């Protein structure tokens, strides 16, 4: 509110050219904006992290089959979850008996962190990873839980994590968006746009979708040939100069002039950022870009690294899109579903961790992995191979950016049903994420309708125990 900011990131650019000085001498428009909405801003405190890659496992992976080692489930196999547990059996689906993990767990790295055979390659990075095994969420339905994972609230309309990060830190590369979201080809997350919206914040902070097909950014491809476009831009520029001169300047007019040149540059820089032809054969192979089933997620992981290298603050990658089995929503069969989705992502995630590490980027890049909730320790139906939604306990993990590796924090109960030791709410994940990026979640606020709104509302605790 107030000024209505005028692309003031551009002003600083112009100022560097000395163009602004002459224009400020007269004219209209709000010229006192101190800095642009996406101008780089210092964090609240010094920190290593410059960027975050959020590997979003859309549809909710089963923690007990992947990262939450529950050998006790073997003991209880075939029994019911004790009747004393009160919970919502989402969607009123069938209920079967407690069922142990569908693939074995094995120790990884020096730390011996237990990770299942769904993620054999990620397991090799165990010493870089802090598992958070006591997550819990506020909703058992995908639509609201996804929105809660992304915004902190189960109701749509609040800014997403990436928006908060872009708002808090700005972006260091003005030719690229500060917050990029890459969806799965199979579709967007349930609830759509509210998952990457900026809510009550200006739309400049909303996530820019890099499309899985076609142009990475909407309207990026020039509508005319290069020569005509350049001459058209020059023509627009000349008309705008005359127009501005007749009005004695104006920062709003100038910002808009500059925005055309920036747009022109984006047309070449964005395609360059997603152009993988300059990557070595070795890199492409490591990410699995050249083969199924890793082709798509491998490509996206590699693009994420390239974006982070180029100064993008927050990159969110979705694994799984649309509904049910097209996502990690393993109602029918954990083995079939997770076999497919883990098969698509395990190699690329491991390659991303290796690549970031080798390039010295892991230290400054937070990698967050997880879905909107977990899955039930009991089968979905008698003897059935699937599992229903479980918001009461699940696992997320972090790596890089000063996160302690080779450890796990928090525990679910012996059934893997609910967070039991050191429960971690999504607000705590958000608080920790902001903390690792140098921001105090209690201070990062945005005034909206008289209230200082926060990503963590009035909640949130930084999980200091996983911070090195």
């Amino acid at each position: 509110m107030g000024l209505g900011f005028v692309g003031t990131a551009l002003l600083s650019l112009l100022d560097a050219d000395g163009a602004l000085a002459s224009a400020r001498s007269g004219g209209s428009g709000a010229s006192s904006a101190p800095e642009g909405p996406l101008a780089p801003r210092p964090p609240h405190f010094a920190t290593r992290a410059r960027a975050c890659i959020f590997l979003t496992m859309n549809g909710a992976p089963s923690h007990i089959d992947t990262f939450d080692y529950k050998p006790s489930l073997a003991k209880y196999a075939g029994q019911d979850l004790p009747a004393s547990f009160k919970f919502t059996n989402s969607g009123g689906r069938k209920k079967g008996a407690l069922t142990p993990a569908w693939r074995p767990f094995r120790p990884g790295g020096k730390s011996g962190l237990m990770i299942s055979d769904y993620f054999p390659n990620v397991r090799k990075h165990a010493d870089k990873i802090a598992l958070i095994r006591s997550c819990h969420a506020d909703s058992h339905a995908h639509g609201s839980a996804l929105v809660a994972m992304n915004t902190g609230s189960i109701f749509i309309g609040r800014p997403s994590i990436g928006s908060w990060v872009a708002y808090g830190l700005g972006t260091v590369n003005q030719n690229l968006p500060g917050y990029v979201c890459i969806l799965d080809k199979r579709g967007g997350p349930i609830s759509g746009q509210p998952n990457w919206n900026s809510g009550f914040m200006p739309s400049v902070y909303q996530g820019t979708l890099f499309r899985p097909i076609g142009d990475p950014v909407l309207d990026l491809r020039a509508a005319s040939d290069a020569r005509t476009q350049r001459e058209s831009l020059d023509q627009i520029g000349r008309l705008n100069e005359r127009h501005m001169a007749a009005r004695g300047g104006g920062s709003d007019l100038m910002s808009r002039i500059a925005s055309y040149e920036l747009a022109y540059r984006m047309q070449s820089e964005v395609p360059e950022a997603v152009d993988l032809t300059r990557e070595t054969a070795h890199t492409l192979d490591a990410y699995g870009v050249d083969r199924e089933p890793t082709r798509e997620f491998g490509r996206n992981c590699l693009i994420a690294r390239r974006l982070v290298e180029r100064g993008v603050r927050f990159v969110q990658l979705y694994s799984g899109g649309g509904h049910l089995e097209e996502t990690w929503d393993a109602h029918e069969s954990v083995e079939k579903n997770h076999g497919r989705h883990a098969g698509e992502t395990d190699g690329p995630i491991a390659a991303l961790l290796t690549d970031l590490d080798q390039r010295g980027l892991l230290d400054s890049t937070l990698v967050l992995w997880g879905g909107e909730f977990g899955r039930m320790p009991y089968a979905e139906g008698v003897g059935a191979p699937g599992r229903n939604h479980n918001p009461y306990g699940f696992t997320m993990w972090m790596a890089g950016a000063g996160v302690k590796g080779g450890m796990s924090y928090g525990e679910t109960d012996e059934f893997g049903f609910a967070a039991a030791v050191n429960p971690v709410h999504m607000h705590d994940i958000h608080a920790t994420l902001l903390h690792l990026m140098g921001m105090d979640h209690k201070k990062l606020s945005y005034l909206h309708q008289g209230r200082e709104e926060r990503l963590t509302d009035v909640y949130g605790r930084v999980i200091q125990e996983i911070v090195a």
Partner: protein
Amino acid sequence: MRRTAWLVLGLVAAATVLLMPTPPIVAQGRPPAKPSVDFELAIRPVLAGRCGSCHGAQIQSGGLRLDSREAMLKGGRRGPAVQPGKPLASLLFRVITGADAALKMPPDGTLPAASVAAIKRWIEDGAVWPAVSAAQAAPNPGAHWAFQPVRAVEPPPVRDRRWVRNPIDAFILSKLEKEQIQPAPPASPRDLARRVTLDLTGLPPTAEDLERFESDARPDRYERLVDSLLASPRYGERWARYWLDLVRYADTNGYERDGEKPYSWKYRDWVIRSLNEDKSYQRFVTEQLAGDELPDRTEQTVAATGFLRLGTWDDEPNDPLDYQYERLDDLVHASGTAFLSLTIRCARCHDHKYDPIPQKDYYAIAASFWGGYLRPGDGKLMGGPPLDRLGFPVLGFTDEGPHPPALRLLEKGDARRPAATVDPGYLSLFPALNRPVTQPPMGAVTTHRRSQLAAWITDPKHPLTSRVTVNRLWQHHFGFGLVRTPNNFGMKGEPPTHPELLDWLARTFVSPTGSSPFAAGWRLKAMHRLMVTSATYRMASVHPAAAQIERKDALNKLWWRFNRRRLDADALRDSMLAVSGELNLSEGGRGFVPSVSREALEGLSRKGAEWSPSAPDDQKRRTVYMFLKRALIMPLLTVFDFGDTTAPIEQRESSIVPTQALGLLNNAFVVDRSTALARSVARTETDPKAAARLAWRRVLGRNPTPSELADAVRFVAATADRYRSTPQSVSDTALEPPALPGLALWLRADRGVERDPDGRVEAWLDQSAAGVRFVQPVTLHRPAMSQLGGGARPALSFDGNARWLKSPAQVISSQAMTLVAVITDRAGNGSHREILSNWRREGNVGSSLFLGTTGPSLIRFSDVFAPAGTLAQPERPSILTAQTGAGSSMVFQDRAVLAERASALEGRKLEGPYVIGQQGNIGGEYWKGEIAEVIAFNRSLDAVERVSLWNYLSRRYGIAPAPRPPSPELRALQALCHVLVNTNEFAFVD
């Protein structure tokens, strides 16, 4: 400074502190070491929540209050409650840890260990009690300006009386004179006319409009212009948009299904009509809150209650018990914000932290809505009443009955902690307006609480309603409100730049017409007229001394010049359509669905969800008539700050970012508008100079200067030269079906037709290599022959009377396919009817393949892609194309996309038999109309192939001709038009 001193003193000698006067410790000025406990999070809630009920403002058990530092230091009968710096010596700490033998607090249990630790640390740190804001420290929150009655104010005297056109100007000028600031000179007549036209109608004036205005010698030419604009239906369409933003208007529910809210558009049309009729604002409010309870209720007034149904609605709430309160909150919030600009919502869980709104008041207001259909019910009703309860087919609100269950205050807003019953009522903040809420009259079917709430809100003495409303009008006319937080008139809001002016306007607004010279009698148009005819409004946006004045008042809070503004998303889109000459001004009805690029559809979770853009003409309607789907708002609008539709939007952002430039340079919508403009210009002017001049007049409303003209002519000539060497090809290649690979079926009415002695068709032989033979052995069921659309080409004629042909063979063998049919559909608004189908009762119900229509020619491309667009002019011959494969499905009529979705059709069972003219062997769903040709391919054709096939068919049938390729000259002119819509002159309003 003072705080630092306090802290140090507090740490060393609490006794000294006690003797000191005790001003509130304010937040400015940092202590040497930041206390490690967050007072607001860890201390205040505990003291207020666990101790406040016995040691607060109302009750002081033991003479002790724990709601200020002063009170705690003073203590109660047992002495001071805290000794700053010394937790172990502090009574408070002792009683909560059980260290005090005599007393243990709180009486109903123990505090969590974390709270005890926090309190210990807090006392160690000096028991600092931050005053949150100056406002909170104010002795009497009721003294806040916005809560005072609207004063009767006289316009102040000014020195330069000639500048004053109406009383508004006296208020503005008086302050400027005090600050010794000269107001900006008047805007030029042209700038003023463009400004007021865009302001009141959202559409640009034409060059002729502007010239007429400039040459009008009458002294009241401006007032006449204003009156004609206010009388135009375009006014309501423009100003409705601001209201729709404020009331979170959209046409779908949001969340997973994001289903359409049926008849939401009737609410939108009601707003537009109300504004155009200049309905009194009292009535405007009342109909929205209680249009269903009015004695003179009509479909219109019930549609107005759609206001209470516009919020997002989750058909799968996490907790249905909770969710009814969430929906209740939406209603309190929407009403409190739109009508009162108060954040009543903040009092849902606790007393409002800043404004004097106790939690009880929240529930008193909420009780007005508690009779509505908020509890979990039939999902099909989308959280609303059944239509028969409303009496009209509208998206409306009404109560379940006259006596709803009691509403209980919820402790901490927790649905599982209900406390005392709260009676319906109003904000205790305004005792002068207090009145009892009466029981519904005998025989009432609703609670009549909402109509009483409306009466309370629209009481002329209400301090907020009138101020809030005139402030919104001012805001949209001048760029910012007099109060620059238009949705928050509470204590955290900004004070008005001109409080007296605000009050004068508010009083003028509600005064009965005739009671004073400007009295508006609650009519908005009178207020618009007053504002836009002021000298303040007529100032230029450029000020010769801007640089100096900006040093003093960069934000223009003194209103020393007009604020230049960028066109908002709606005005920009509408303006482009207006200048290209394409704007379709048809009013009202269900929203049109815009075309969006395939990439934009990628964001939807349901890729199978069809996106059926409306017919091209329909898409040229004003933006206010666009269908707003919460999961996907047209990207070109969102990039220009079209708001998020989930919460009330008081003021759109006005950002300037490079993605806007990308949109205006490259988006197909903009390219199409400049192409249309170039065609339209080229129709009138062939001379390059004249054409450029006309383009200027159309886009910018003026003639180009000689140098601009010369430059433009040069640009067009150079561009045309370049295009001549690289001509744009519109493919005129025409290919017969067999020339394209994958042909599976080719039926044409001029070949392979075998007729019985009556001339009826007994067999139709496929001309593809497959040679499938469709037959009808029963005479009674044979279709006749006719001329397609009464023209020269033969067609099979199906009269809807059980005529069909059948082949036992399987026709299509691939999940990727293209079906093309040349047809007419003469069924009118009939039921299902099919062109081609392989439906079988046993085997493929739901998974069959068919192409047909239903109802008013809605296309069905199997059950999973239906509806897939609507045939325009179905009785005229057209080429219907449906294809699927490779992550996309599309339906075309002639050459235009009717529907598409970002996924292939899911697993069709393709075995035969196939039939022409009905739905498989159902013995029904008969085609009524003509079929001249049916072509099928076992793959999805690409764009080039499609065009070559269409070219072939269009030549043979004389329908849907290929568009002529634009000449190099036209393309160059298009480039110029495109340049012009990209200019600042077009995008900004001075």
